[in-house]
């Protein structure tokens, strides 16, 4: 798959430095890429701060070029590096984030970063297979085995427990930078895997269709040849590849350049995220639905928790800037008794209410009483505000192009599924690439890529529909209809198969919950 000269130049050289960072403009002037003689000599490893004028440098030829070295892009690279059938591929990773070159600094003493992800058991096993989980375990992480979801009306609550599905835990909360640095060091340790990091941004993309090979078998000139996509970076480097993977987040340029349309909407809601401290350790994930959206309290190790609090944009502005003590007070209010009373039991009435007949067959956690979340005593990080949106690309693939992660779909962070869906994409795409190689199909061939698209669209769309449905259900105060919502909670609390389905779907183990089909 790799043509030898490129391999010679690139092999095992992880970092290719070139003009860095001075221009983040996405709209670099478009140049035409033509004959070999026209370009300056290949980029050499230099920390060129003196290079002011843009020189076109040939970055070389790659089997796969991953645009975006975020969590999902790096996971794809790791997954390709870990499978025998894809290990030989030459991979380029393009990202202007200097952390990819300089490494990610993780201070174990400082409180955790507010940007965290709730990792599902399916993601954990993927990390284990790639050899990246060990590294995560060396850093701060928090497994949780219980989850309590309730709402402000005081009419119902649900407790989920890992025991319900015979698991040791429901998920694990990890800082994003820990995930990213674990993936990065997993890649770096894999010396046999040919990867090159381009510390720059994608500027333009074109398909070099049907130009026949020039110069016989000699590609050392670096001429783009054959059926390839060409990428131009903002620092003037160009490279060619069989497959461009857009892992460049929700504002994906790859998606735009490939002409994929998206469907979606803004929730006109923002999420305020931050790290908070308690008096004691927290081992449970908590989510309470309020009139303007949910507030989640996720354990992140020691006495810390992470708050993801959805609210109206004007409220988020106020809460970001308000006094710390006031914020803590409001957070505690939102987590208990704000907007409505605590639920007294599973359903209006008591535990002997309308669902009592189900109890013989109930899950272990059905007997658990409602618990109060731990009190927040201190704010332990800055407060960050993110607008919430739901977006889905109508296509994930075309010839030479595939999208993964937030580039393909952005979901409401309600159930902490966003990045897990992205990891699922990375795994599925690397498998499809492996299958293509196994049967000798060109990896940029759209017929094979469609298989990836078909597999992931089902998984992603159903999760998006579930989360969007939940979101809609909770955005409006239904008044008397609140009781229906409470009934839905109570049903989930007491009816074991339903509950198991919800858990296994949220753990990424099931493609489509029978519940929602």
């Amino acid at each position: 798959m790799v043509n030898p000269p490129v391999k010679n130049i690139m092999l095992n050289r992880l970092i290719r430095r070139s003009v860095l960072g001075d221009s983040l403009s996405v709209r670099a002037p478009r140049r035409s890429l033509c004959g070999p003689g026209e370009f300056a000599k290949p980029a050499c490893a230099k920390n060129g701060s003196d290079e002011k004028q843009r020189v076109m440098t040939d970055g070389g030829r790659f089997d796969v070029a991953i645009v975006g070295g975020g969590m999902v892009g790096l996971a794809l690279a790791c997954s390709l590096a870990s499978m025998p059938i894809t290990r030989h591929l030459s991979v380029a990773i393009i990202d202007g984030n200097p952390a990819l070159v300089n490494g990610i600094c993780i201070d174990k003493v400082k409180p955790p970063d507010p940007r965290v992800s709730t990792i599902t058991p399916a993601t954990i096993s993927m990390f284990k297979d790639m050899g990246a989980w060990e590294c995560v375990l060396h850093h701060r992480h928090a497994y949780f085995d219980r989850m309590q979801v309730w709402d402000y009306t005081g009419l119902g609550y649900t407790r989920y427990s890992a025991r319900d599905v015979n698991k040791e835990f429901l998920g694990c909360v990890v800082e994003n930078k820990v995930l990213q640095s674990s993936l990065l060091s997993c890649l770096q340790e894999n010396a046999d895997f040919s990867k090159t990091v381009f510390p720059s941004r994608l500027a333009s993309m074109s398909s070099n269709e049907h130009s026949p090979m020039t110069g016989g078998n000699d590609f050392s000139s670096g001429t783009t040849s054959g059926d390839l996509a060409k990428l131009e970076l903002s620092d003037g480097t160009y490279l060619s590849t069989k497959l461009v993977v857009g892992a460049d987040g929700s504002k994906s340029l790859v998606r735009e350049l490939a002409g994929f349309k998206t469907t979606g909407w803004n929730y006109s809601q923002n999420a305020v995220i931050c790290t908070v401290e308690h008096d004691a350790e927290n081992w449970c994930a908590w989510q309470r639905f309020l009139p303007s959206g949910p507030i989640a309290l996720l354990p992140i190790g020691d006495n810390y928790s992470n708050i993801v609090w959805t609210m109206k944009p004007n409220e988020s502005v106020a809460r970001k800037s308000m006094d710390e003590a006031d914020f803590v007070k409001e957070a505690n209010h939102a987590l208990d008794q704000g907007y409505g009373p605590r639920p007294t039991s599973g359903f209006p009435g008591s535990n002997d209410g309308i669902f009592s007949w189900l109890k013989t067959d109930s899950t272990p956690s059905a007997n658990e009483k409602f618990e109060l979340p731990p009190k927040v005593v201190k704010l332990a990080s800055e407060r960050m505000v993110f607008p919430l949106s739901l977006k889905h690309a109508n296509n994930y693939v075309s010839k030479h192009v595939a999208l993964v992660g937030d580039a393909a779909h952005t979901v409401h962070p309600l159930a902490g599924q966003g990045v897990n869906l992205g990891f699922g994409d990375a795994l599925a795409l690397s498998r499809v690439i492996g299958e293509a190689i196994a049967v000798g199909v060109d990896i940029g061939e759209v017929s094979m890529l469609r298989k990836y698209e078909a597999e992931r669209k089902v998984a992603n769309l159903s999760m998006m529909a579930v989360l969007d449905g939940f979101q809609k259900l909770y955005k409006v105060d239904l008044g008397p209809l609140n009781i229906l919502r409470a009934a839905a909670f109570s049903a989930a609390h007491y009816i074991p198969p339903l509950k198991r389905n919800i858990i296994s779907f949220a753990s990424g183990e099931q493609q489509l919950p029978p519940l929602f089909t």
Partner: protein
Amino acid sequence: MASKLLRCATTVSSFIRASPSSLFSRPRLLSGAASSDPPPSPPPTDLPPPPSPGGGISRNPDRRTSKSSLKDPELAKFSALADTWWDYEGPFKPLHAMNPTRLAFIRSTICRHFGKDPSSPRPFEGLKIIDVGCGGGILSEPLARMGATVMGIDAVEKNIKIAQVHADRDPSTLGIEYCCTTAEKLVKEQRTFDVVISLEVIEHVANPAEFCKSLSALAIPGGATVISTINRSMRAYATAIVAAEYLLGWLPKGTHEWSSFLKPEELVLILQRASISIKEMAGFVYNPLTRRWYLSDDVSVNFIVYGFKCKQ
């Protein structure tokens, strides 16, 4: 549905039935200096002028097709034809859809036969494989990517040119040796291969028994053979002929002669007579929901066999 695949094979049929006597004797050698880049570099000295763009079967003896023998307009024409051949949504769509499934069968049987590592990206490294009736190269190219040294033959010169133009686009398929010739001809030249593959061809051959003997003669003793075709069953009749040719108009009427289809046991028998002992057989079934083909035990419509040439 299944028989829509056979459109490509129709071109093959004409050649074998017509059995052009003196197609082409020397195998084409790929010269590193050859280039199809417009403007073309001058062809190696001993090459004849390019064939007329009319395509079809060439009766001109000793005519070579090589990328360096194509002129600019020719190149453009064959390049456009290659686009059609290789368009996964185009007329050969069913063939493309079935291809990964056929290749999965070939990969697993050939790896076992030669003790190759199936998890390797290029398990066929070191194996010489001939693709008899290669058409536009839909099978030859993947085989080359899997590491094999591939020769693709087809008696229709147009197909060979299409295959050549397309293979030239990717360095991993550049080494395929395409040649406008027949199996019989190569037998006379005493060419041999580790693996002989002929997919969707035998049902168009005038004399399947003779054809199998030629395939056998091309294999080294202990070498492997893979053949696929359509069963002479009522279901195959319904899908391949009634549906594909008459109802849906996918194929020209008369593309298939049902009576020339072989039943699996007949194919096994004629291969046995040609010293090829069948070790495995599988059927292809199409799932219209996933639009994919799967290998199965159901050999009632399309089936594929793998065998080895007895050492004697």
